[in-house]
């Protein structure tokens, strides 16, 4: 727990969610995927923090909100090793890795300009065909893309 305390101490959180171990170059994609911009709660975003595992990492701290797990899991597409920490009274009460869902809806833009999803007011939908490699396939046109290269809407 020593390393947790060190990294989480940037702005100690009484209650809320801390998402840790986000690759530095994917942090702002995660912010976008979680749609944090409109949130009126206290939000701390740190980037390029030192990490033994990742070299440089990003971290997101959200006070007083428990974001549902299926929502947080969406970031597994770009941050497969991210860890969700649930904080109660300054203590980490739960800690789990993110997990890629079977389907990715409404967050990735299809790379195919001739895809119906790029020409019709509708939600995109991708089926996860290889969770390990984070490979997803457009449910409509069949074009595939891997996680880190995904164009986030």
């Amino acid at each position, binding site marked *: 727990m020593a390393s947790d305390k060190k990294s989480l101490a940037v702005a100690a959180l009484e209650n809320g969610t801390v998402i840790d171990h986000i690759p530095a170059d994917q942090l702002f994609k995660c912010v976008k995927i979680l749609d944090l911009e409109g949130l009126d709660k206290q939000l701390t975003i740190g980037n390029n923090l030192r990490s033994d595992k990742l070299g440089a990492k990003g971290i997101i701290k959200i006070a007083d909100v428990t974001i549902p797990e299926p929502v947080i899991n969406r970031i597994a597409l770009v941050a497969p090793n991210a860890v969700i920490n649930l904080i109660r009274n300054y203590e980490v009460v739960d800690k789990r890795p993110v997990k890629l869902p079977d389907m990715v809806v409404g967050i990735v833009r299809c790379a195919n300009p*001739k895809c*119906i*999803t790029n020409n*019709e007011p*509708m939600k995109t939908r991708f089926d996860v065909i290889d969770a390990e490699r984070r490979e997803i396939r457009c449910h409509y046109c*069949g074009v*595939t893309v891997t996680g880190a290269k995904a164009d986030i809407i």
Partner: protein
Amino acid sequence: MNPHSLVSIDDLSKDKIMQLLDRAKFFEEHPNHRFLAGKVVGTLFFEPSTRTRLSFETAVNRLGGRIIGFSDPSATSTSKGESLKDTIKMVSNYVDLIIMRHYLEGAARYATEVTDVPVINAGDGANQHPSQTMLDLYSIYKTQGKLTDLTITLVGDLKYGRTVHSLIMAMKYFNPTFRFVACNELRMPKEYLDFCDSQGIKYTEHTDFSAEVIDSSDIIYMTRVQRERFTDLMEYERVKDLYTLHNAMLDNSRDNLRILHPLPRVNEINVDVDDNPKAYYFEQARNGLFMRQSLICEALQIDPQSDFAE
């Protein structure tokens, strides 16, 4: 969403494919029966395709159904910016079945999600064209008497050729051996080679359209090599005639060999092949009619064979 829509060849199980082939054979023997009496079919061609539209509309007419629709989207409100969803919802009020062709990939899949009327995909961009694949299967089945254990040679544009990709997917149930004959620039994409590997499908790749390849084939499936597919026009000039079939090349071919082509052809099959009994591309197009009658009945859950027996 209607469960009897047909969007992609992947939607069909082996049993369903065999049932549809059997039914196409029934329609070949009984082409004119009014199984669609009182039904209205919408043929929505957001992209013109005279050949496919005539085949589908003939199928509906021979089954005694009626047709509404359009063959040129410039005459519709789509050209005024109406969404696909709105067009499909509007037409769904009037028809029992939608047959649609669209220039955008995934359009047919999306259409199935916004209506309860069954939808048959008559081609969505470079994506899927399942009635073409099914008529190809029917042509192979009819000429060879079976679908299993055949050696099938695919020639020409294997990179962009939608029909050859779908044929590979559909043949996965039937233990085929494929020969892929193409120039380097138009060779079979890796994802389809990977698919063959994952399914245990045997294949070899060739840049030469050689006698050895021709003489060991049961089916040769020719496709068009289009100039606009090449990034290097020198390469096009170099290869454009290497993948043309001439009658003399068939001298030592197997008796059961048949030549298929999705049509229209340009010059990849010389006209001197046309009179060879192994040329099958015109009959292949005719088979499309019977297969489309079969697919239309499936989408509407009409069982013509049992209805006919009664």
